[in-house]
């Protein structure tokens, strides 16, 4: 936990510094008439102090022996694959359209945990895409992009 707290403390400290500087640029106004950056300056200032406190507390603690690795031994590659696929989907969905892009997405997502029966993967992807399209687009009037191929 020690290393994790040190790392996260530093991360939030850097976030707080960035927000603090931007708040100053936005203008904090006067106490009688606070400006746009007043509240965020205060919030980021306290966040910075607390992040520093977390970092220092973690640094002086003796819990080193209890530290557990963040990723090793876990199926984190699956997570990275899913994240990558989701990111690509977000970009290409307006171009390819909902039906086509969602079918591809669902095929990959089902395939991640079920690699033996490919026909089942295709069938589940096809059905989930089609049903979600009819429920959300036709029934609930959500507006999905048609994309290049009009799908």
């Amino acid at each position: 936990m020690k290393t994790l707290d040190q790392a996260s403390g530093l991360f939030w400290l850097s976030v707080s510094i960035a927000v603090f500087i931007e708040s100053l640029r936005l203008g904090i106004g006067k106490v009688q008439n606070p400006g746009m950056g007043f509240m965020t300056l205060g919030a980021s200032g306290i966040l910075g102090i607390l992040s520093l406190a977390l970092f220092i507390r973690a640094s002086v603690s003796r819990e080193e022996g209890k530290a557990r690795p963040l990723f090793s031994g876990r199926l984190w590659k699956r997570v990275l694959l899913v994240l990558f696929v989701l990111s690509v989907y977000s970009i290409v969905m307006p171009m390819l359209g909902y039906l086509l892009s969602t079918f591809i997405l669902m095929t990959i997502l089902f395939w991640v945990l079920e690699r033996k029966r490919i026909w089942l993967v295709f069938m589940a992807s096809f059905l989930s895409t089609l049903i979600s399209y009819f429920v959300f687009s036709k029934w609930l009037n959500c507006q999905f992009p048609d994309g290049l191929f009009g799908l």
Partner: protein
Amino acid sequence: MACSVFKAMGFFDNILYGFQVTFQPVNFLFCGIGVLVGTLVGVLPGIGPAGAMALLLPATFKFSPTSTLILLAGIYYGVQYGGSTTSILVNIPGEASSVITCLDGYQMARQGRAGPALGIAAWGSFIAGTIANLGLMFVAVPLAYAALSLGPPEYFSLMCMGLVIVTYLAQRSVLKAIMMALVGIILGSIGLDLITGLPRFTFGINELTDGVGIIPLVMGLFGISEILENLEESLERDVFKAPIKNLWPSLKDWAQAKWAIVRGSIIGFLLGILPGGGAVISPFVSYAVEKKISKNPEKFGKGAIEGVASPESANNAAAGASLIPLLSLGIPPNPIMAIFFSALIIHGIQPGPLLIKQHPDLFWGLVASLYLGNALLIVLNLPLIGIWVKVLKIPYKILFPLILLFCLIGAYSMNNVNFDLYVMIFFGVLGWGMRKFGYEGAPLILAYVLGPMLENALRQSLLISQGSFWIFMTRPISAVALGFAIFLLLSNLFPFFRKRRREYGEFKE
């Protein structure tokens, strides 16, 4: 005296009016869908009540705000019920509010008493939900009238108190919870400034001028991050296999559980009103109280029916009671209520003391729907327990792509822009990291919603006082609320309170 008060307030007329609203076909349907979806969400891992509400919210845009709130409320207390099913049958709580039910519920199931455990959980939830509804009707209206006299300093202090209580009750580190609340305030400030109308922290991105959307934020922090965490593990659930019979508890069961249900309902209701209390903490407190006053405390953890009845009553009572601060003061006391708050804003309704007066159909319709929903939960769920057991057996390899798809659709359909998908994925990764590094999402969400109101109240207060911060201490309500918040913050420094917090944490573990 009481009758004359009721007459003056048009109390019974209002209740009848509420039932007229609730029994309109669309509202009736939404109530039914809400409790069904809520139970489903409670049974399934990976999406949670906040995610489910965020998912269905865009679909309600063409319906009235009353229908929307009835749907969301149905999901909320349906989840409390569904969570108990997994706790009893699988020993895995569907939701955080059902964690404690595992202790005795699963033991009862192993002893061949899954039926009575499920039955008493359902009836306890029903009775507690009804008691909470009565409390809601009696407390919310007078509180809303009283709140009309509150000004910006009181609102600022009350919101500060709410945020501090949420961080104080954090399951992990208080320091990290406060940090998350501050991050939430910063996130809430993204977009146009309320007073000057100028953009801030938008980095030139047009989509950010309206701020970060609550739906992609909630979907990311709660939905996507949980899926990513689950994907790292191999999730195999061992569902209780013996047939479930005798769902109606015996007279002996009732005799043992009746006072536990009453006490759980009262504790849940009182804690539910408090900011941060909600449905999560009250089951722990009620279980601890029940064990403390029991003549046979050694039975707890080994299949005591009181150990199921009390927490299940408490979480449902708290779910109903947490509507009080939202509907009477306009202050959401927990992240779920923050979504209710956002739903009202999206539908053009400003939550606050005037809500009950200006939108009686919404308030009384919602109150009546709580009665209806509780009854529906009993009618639908006990006979359908076999279906929920089958749902429990759906493998995660089928569930997780579907939950991800629902999250994507929910985030996209809010504004029909794929920028919201980027936002959701970003917060999904952030939420995943937060889980790994021991941070909680609840204070962040609540602060994100309260942040703009908090800032507005602070700036207005300072304008009124011409820059003097003493305005928060010279007004009695503000001084008490702020004083309590400061006391809670400082209490973390005292060994006695730190020891109590540690014990509470160990109890939850």
